[in-house]
Structures are given as C-alpha cells and as structure tokens.
C-alpha cells in the first residue's frame, strides 16, 4: 500500500482518539472550549462537504447554522409551545428546518438554467446580509438582543433531570461530530459522492452523461443545510444564547476562512482548520489585539493563493475507495507493488 495515503487514514483515526481522550488530560475550561470548537467543526464539515465535494461555494452557510440555533432556542425556551420545550424536538426541528430552507434555496438557485458558481456565491452572501437584518428586526426572535437564557443540554437519563457536566456535553458534541463525519465520508465515497465530484470538475460533462446534476446539487445542499442547522442547535445549548450575529455574514465568512485554511477538499482537514484557527486566536488575540484579524485576513489570502489544499489537506487526504481504484487490482492481486505506483498517477482524475 502507498504510505502517504495510509498515513492520512491513520492520522485521521489518531486525531479522533486524541479528541476522545482530551477530557482526561485537560482542565474543565479547556474541555468546554474544545467542545465549542467541535461544534464549529461540524459547521465547517457541512461547508467542506458542499464546497470541497460538489464545488458549490456558499457564502451564507451561517444562515442554516443560525436558523438551527434560533429554532433550538425557540423550542427549548418554549416559544413554540406545541412542541413542549423538549431538547430532542429542538434538535430535530433544528435539523429539518434548515434542511428545508436549503432545499428551497437550492431549488430556487439551481433549477432551470441556474446560477453559475460565482453568482451563487454572491447571492448567498446577499441572502446572509438580508437574513441578518431581518433577524435584527423581528421581535418574536428577540430582535437585536436575540434569545437569552437558552437552557443547557439536560441529562434525561439521570434522576432529577439536571444539566450535563462539561465532559458529558463534550462527549455529546464529539459523538455527534464523529457520526456526522462518518456519514458525510460515507456519502463522499459512495457513487453519489462520485457524481458530486464529477459535477465539481465539469458540470456540463456530467449532465451530458445523463446525470440530473441539479437534483444532485440540491440534495447535497439540503444535506449540508441539515448538518449546519444541527451544529447551530448544539451551539445554542452550549452558549445559552442566540444573537443575529451568528446568522449573518460574520460567521459565514469565518467558517469559509476555517475551511479554506484547513483544507476544503478533506472533511477532517476542514474540521481541524476550526480547531487550529480558534485555538491560535484564543492564544494570540489577547497579545495581538486588532492585529490578529489583519493577520487572519492575510493568512486567508495566502492559503487561497498559494495553498488551495489548505494546511492539512494533503496530510489528511484519504486513499480512494477500493472500488474506484484500477479494476486491474482484482484481476492481479499479486501485482500490488506495481499497482501502488500506478495509484499515485491515477488519483487526480477521480478526486
């Protein structure tokens, strides 16, 4: 087997193990910080899936995140009384609602002659601006202040129904992240994911092979919206509030930076991009003050111009699914050495 690709898989597993062990080594504050980064990491994976796999650059990913956050807040604050304030209902609603919103937006923008990549990016950016303004001026969801005092995650399995401990919250978030990661990875490596990659490379060619590219794009966008919404719900429960700032351009831009810096094409790289940027930010922003944002902007330009794979993209790239590799493999299992050399050359066209 090729060493470089194996190491990508091993590194990914190693990172998950390290994350799972983190509460044993770190103090409570760091664990809660890490839990918050993981929530943003789920958001980053949702963007990486739509952008890295299907080539759809969305400048308004925070719309779905924020929508999920608001729906979770509204449900658990009992403002949507018919749901009874249950957190599970909130999580479900926060997943389904943004999915629906993404479906409608996708249908509107992709169907027909549709918008090309750049226009799609600009329209989603404008949508994020508008949604933020509307959220600021809607009294039902708290206007400029947003929703305050959202209850934290409760542990229903214990008697007394009290709050989860920091470590429990961390494992809930980590478990969610792992499940979502595996789900998105499975989809990326399924035939469906192959079609998405084909659309990214050349949509017209894919369409001329008979694939309904619009349906595929809308489906991928819907899934991405659902994941972002779920992350938003976790965010609300962790922070205890929702404000219009998280539904607009600020967070949409931030998640773009995380994903671009980490590596847009690899889920794990995007996920780590969040942890890296946020950790560095918490260390440096105190000493650098306003210069931190300047530095971040310049770093973003540098990665976009010089390293389109991001910092971790190459490192964490996984080997291709077995069935995508050369069909020769099954006929000549004794030629593994030869094939490993061939593998290097053939990764490009299918990724």
């Amino acid at each position, binding site marked *: 087997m090729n060493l470089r690709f194996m190491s990508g898989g091993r590194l990914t597993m190693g990172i998950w193990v390290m994350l799972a062990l983190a509460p044993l080594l770190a103090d409570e504050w760091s664990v809660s910080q890490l839990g918050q980064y993981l929530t943003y990491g789920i958001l980053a994976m949702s963007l990486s899936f739509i952008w890295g796999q299907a080539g759809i*650059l969305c400048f308004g990913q925070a719309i779905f995140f924020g929508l999920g956050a608001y729906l979770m807040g509204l449900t658990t604050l009992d403002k949507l009384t018919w749901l009874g304030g249950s957190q599970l209902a909130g999580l479900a609603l926060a997943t389904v609602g943004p999915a629906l919103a993404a479906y409608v937006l996708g249908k509107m*923008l992709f169907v027909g*002659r549709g918008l090309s*990549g750049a226009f799609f990016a600009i*329209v989603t950016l404008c949508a994020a601006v*508008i949604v933020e303004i509307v959220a600021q001026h809607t009294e039902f969801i708290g206007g400029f202040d947003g929703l305050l005092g959202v209850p934290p995650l409760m542990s229903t399995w214990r008697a007394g129904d009290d709050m989860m401990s920091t470590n429990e919250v961390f494992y809930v978030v980590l478990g969610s992240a792992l499940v979502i990661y595996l789900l998105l990875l499975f989809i990326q490596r399924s035939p469906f994911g192959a079609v998405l990659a084909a659309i990214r490379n050349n949509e017209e060619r894919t369409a001329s092979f008979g694939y309904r590219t619009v349906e595929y794009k809308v489906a991928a966008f819907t899934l991405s919206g659902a994941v972002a919404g779920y992350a938003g719900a976790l965010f609300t429960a962790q922070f205890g509030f929702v404000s219009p700032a998280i539904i607009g*351009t600020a967070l949409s831009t931030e998640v773009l930076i995380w994903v671009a810096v980490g590596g847009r094409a690899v889920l794990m790289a995007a996920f780590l991009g969040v942890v890296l940027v946020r950790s560095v930010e918490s260390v440096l922003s105190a000493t650098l003050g306003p210069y931190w944002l*300047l530095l971040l902007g310049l770093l973003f330009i540098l990665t976009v*111009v010089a390293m*389109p794979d991001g910092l971790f993209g190459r490192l964490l790239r996984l080997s291709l699914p077995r069935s995508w590799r050369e069909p020769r493999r099954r006929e000549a299992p004794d030629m593994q050495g030869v094939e490993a050399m061939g593998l290097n050359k053939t990764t490009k066209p299918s990724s």
Partner: protein
Amino acid sequence: MSFAIELGLDTLSYSLSLLLVSLGLVIIFGLMNVINMAHGEFFLLGAYSVVAVQHAGMPYWAALIVAPIVLAIIGVVVEQLIIRHVYHRFIDTILATWGLALAIKQLIVIVFGPTSQSIVNPLPEPVQILGVVYPSFRLFIMAVALAVSVATFWVFYRTHIGLAIRGVIANRSMAASLGLNTRRMDRWTFAFGAALAGFAGAVMAPIMSVDPQMGGGFLIPAFLSIMVGGMAHLLGVVLGVGLIGATGTVISSIDTQVASQVAVFLLAIIIIRIWPEGLIGRRR
C-alpha cells in the same frame, strides 16, 4: 408634488452614486473575469482618504484627486501581488479578494479606530431646485457621477483603448494573438476600477457615515445591480442601478429601511431567477 420631486431627486442621486460604484466592479469583471469582493473596501479607502486629507489641513477638493491616485497605486500592487496568481481559478478570486477586504477593513480600524469619522460638508448651503429645497452637495455628487459615467462610456465606445478593451472582453486569446498586451491591460484595468471605487468613496464621504463598515453597504446593492442588469454590456449596469436604486429609494420612503433592503433583494432574486444572464445579457 414636491414630495414626488424630492423622491425623484433622491432616486436619481442614489442610482447615480450606485452607478459610480458598480462601473468599476463591472469593468473588472468584464475584462478580467474577476469578481472583486474588495471593491467595497476600495470605496472605503477612498472615503478615508478624505479623512486623511482633512487631517493634513487640505481642502476637501484635494481628496478628489488624491483618492483615485492612491487607489490606482493600491490597485496595481494588489493585482501584482494577489490577483495575478489566481486568474485561472475563478472561484478563488472571490475568496482572495474577500480576504483582502477583511484585511483592509481591519487596517482601517487599526489606523483610524472603529468609530465613525466626521467630515465637513464642503457645500453646506441648500439650493432651491424645481420648487424644493435640496442639499447642494447631493446635486454636486449627481453631476460628478454623471460626468464620470459618461466619460467611461466615451472611453469604452469611442476610443482606441476602449476598442482594445472590448476586444479582450469579447475574445481574450484572439486579442492576445493579434498583438494586444493583455497582461498590461489587466493591470491597468484593475487599477482603473480601483481608482473609480476610490473616487466614488471620496465623493460620497461627506454625506455618509464614514466608518470601517461602510464598504459593505454599497457592495451588496452594486452586486445585485450588475447581476440584474447583466455584465455583457455597460448599459446593463445603467439599467440595473436604475431598477435597484429606484426600488430601494421608493420603498424606504414609504416603509422602513429594512423593508426596502428585503424588497430589493427579493426583486433581484426574481429577476436573476428568470434571466440568469441579466436583463441585457449575452443570449445563449
């Protein structure tokens, strides 16, 4: 009646200002196929050059010369350092210029502070026009915007440089093989677009709240205008800013600012949905 005249003047003033901002955007896009997300920040730098000129004790009018020159230099530098490297990656130009926008905005915060700056209105006396009292500086902005737009059109459609630019827009490789230096044209086009944005910023600064967030306020309607109007022809921009400007001004006069922004966005989405190439677009 005077309400209608005032509304009409407001619409015209807003649309012409929007045109000034959009022109640079659409020229850069048309020639270089680069969507410049930092355009709003070039506008911002233009406005802050007024602040700097005022600090230096020079009159406001000096800024109208300083701003485009400074921005043209910045444009050349940015093109050389960033844009040149991502020409072939269309989507990445959006990201790179977006990063640039963040950096410029933060640089302004560091140098001038996050609060809004006050700029002395150079023409404080209102004038009587068509039976309504109207701020004379707005009339000045309208005149300048109209003059600059007409001059840009004239350069594009009546001069040799314009012919060369239109040739590159129509078929880049053919124009290059006929001996046009497309590399140099890209650089100067970007500089010109940046200068136009800077000039717009300097002209508009006295009637706007000059703070680090002001760039975004014009960028969104400018983008919507050029998408609605279409990018194939400069006239599309005129149509786009007219439509977006009129809708925005009229609705904000009868309802809130929020309602007007939402309405403009929805209108733009509907038009883009029906005519993805814009109202005056390349027909496939």
